[in-house]
């Protein structure tokens, strides 16, 4: 069983402010509780299927220039850098 404190901690780590407890913590709690059904699936010994893509199947590792100055579409930039607020 998940605790409300755990949910609040994850929200904070994801930079989400939880100001409406009923809307966020309570509903997330109900959703995660539903996932407990996975415990009865009996899949402990199941292998996880991973699709392997050989490196030869990937496109060439080559810079493809975009036809516009994309950075100019941003609201906050300086030269070729994105501007961000100061980190504490």
């Amino acid at each position, binding site marked *: 069983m998940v605790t409300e404190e755990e949910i609040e901690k994850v929200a904070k780590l994801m*930079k989400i402010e939880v100001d409406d407890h009923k809307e966020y913590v309570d509903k997330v709690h109900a959703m995660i509780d539903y996932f407990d059904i*996975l415990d009865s699936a009996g*899949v402990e010994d199941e292998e996880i299927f991973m699709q392997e893509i050989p490196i030869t199947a990937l496109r060439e590792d080559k810079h493809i220039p975009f036809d516009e100055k994309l950075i100019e579409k941003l609201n906050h930039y300086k030269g070729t850098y994105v501007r961000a607020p100061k980190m504490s």
Partner: protein
Amino acid sequence: MNLKISALSYVQEVQNGNISAEDFTAATLEHIHNIDEKLHAFLSVNDNAINQARDIDKKIKSGKKVGACFGMPISIKDNMCIKDSKTTCASKMLENFVAPYDATVISKLKEQDAIFIGKANMDEFAMGLTTEFSAYGPSKNPWNVDYTPGGSSGGSAVSVSAFECVASLGSDTGGSVRNPASFCSTVGYKPTYGLISRYGLISYANSIEQIGPVTRTVKDTAFLLNMITGLDPNDNTTVDNKNEDYLLGIDSGVEGKKIGIIKEMMAEGTDPAVVSATNDAISKLEGLGAICEEVSLDMVKYSVAAYYTITATEAGSNLARYDNLRYGYDFSLEGYEFNSYIQKARKNFGPEVTRRMIIGGFVPSAGHAGKYFLKALKVKSKLTKEINDAFKKYDLLIAPTVPILPFKLGEKIDDPVALFLVDINTVTANLTGKPAISVPFAVSNGLPIGIQLLADSNNDKILLQAANALEQTVKLPEVPI
């Protein structure tokens, strides 16, 4: 002007000179103007559509080569990028985002002279199944405006059902094309994973989502697939379909085909009207020479929990980019520390997106991944094995698209688990990468019911043939608008 015609009929009418692209587009825009205030299928309408249609008419008259769409008005779910057009994902976060490039599906349709009549409403970032989570208000079901049209591609299905366009593109992560298609009595298609490029589709859950057509007929879906499928160097997950012609042989029928009826998708809780319609569809297919028998996919019971665990995890990662620096709602940088700035920006996500981001941070986190995320991946693996085994015996599988009838707007919005369970019959195709289609089949007390058919990966053509055969067995009432 008859706006109720299919895509193939539209092309024929324009080719024969019976209608012009301009007249059809003008009539479509007028219809949207008259009806969309009530239905809210669109988030934006293309103001330049008439000029584009006029240009296509000029090409036709001058004998120049014209693309296969001949100016056909198509709506596009607002999570696909059209260069120099707003793409909001029905979110306040992207309220002012203008796409700098075309999605691959858009480039392909432009080459075929399609007209993008407008951007269709949806649940915010495609998270939802009623369109009630659109930041701009829900779409309404044209069969009864008090009811949800389904989602997340609700605007796409409404626009096709209510004749506000000839066809639409939606995206399907857990049923988001098939669910609204079922609720609005249109055809909705989720292709084999990789058949259609996702380049330019705003990402939600990359490993399972696909773009898919919403159309009035199965043949129209095949027609659209002929134009939008195939390898794309910009999407490494695309598969080479060797330029398959999905219309060729579409009337082949189902004689001799073996069809498995998925037991777990007709379980307790399925609406009796939906059970009755499904049984009727099975009888009709048997009447056409198919052999139908029950098959069990045990993991279906756990599929919704696995689906939401996996999609929330991928969404948590995908949505991390909305920090108001590269994308997002604009406000000044001054006076903020980095974390508080991003926290403020993220308040522009709606409640469902916020909840799924929190879940997406929680279920794969250290200490919880074994209980949730890894177990969900194991369910996905076992479900894939089960369905692969089923396809060794059967050509197709059948089930209701949605186990319940369309429900009233607001009825389930405060109960997230009740909403989860509406997806129970559709997520299997996404988790396993199989193609699936919803075919309009019945109307019960004025509300549509769709039947879902599934096929093995890359057997999209066989699936369309069966869907076309099923579609021919019924004549449904017209949408009461």
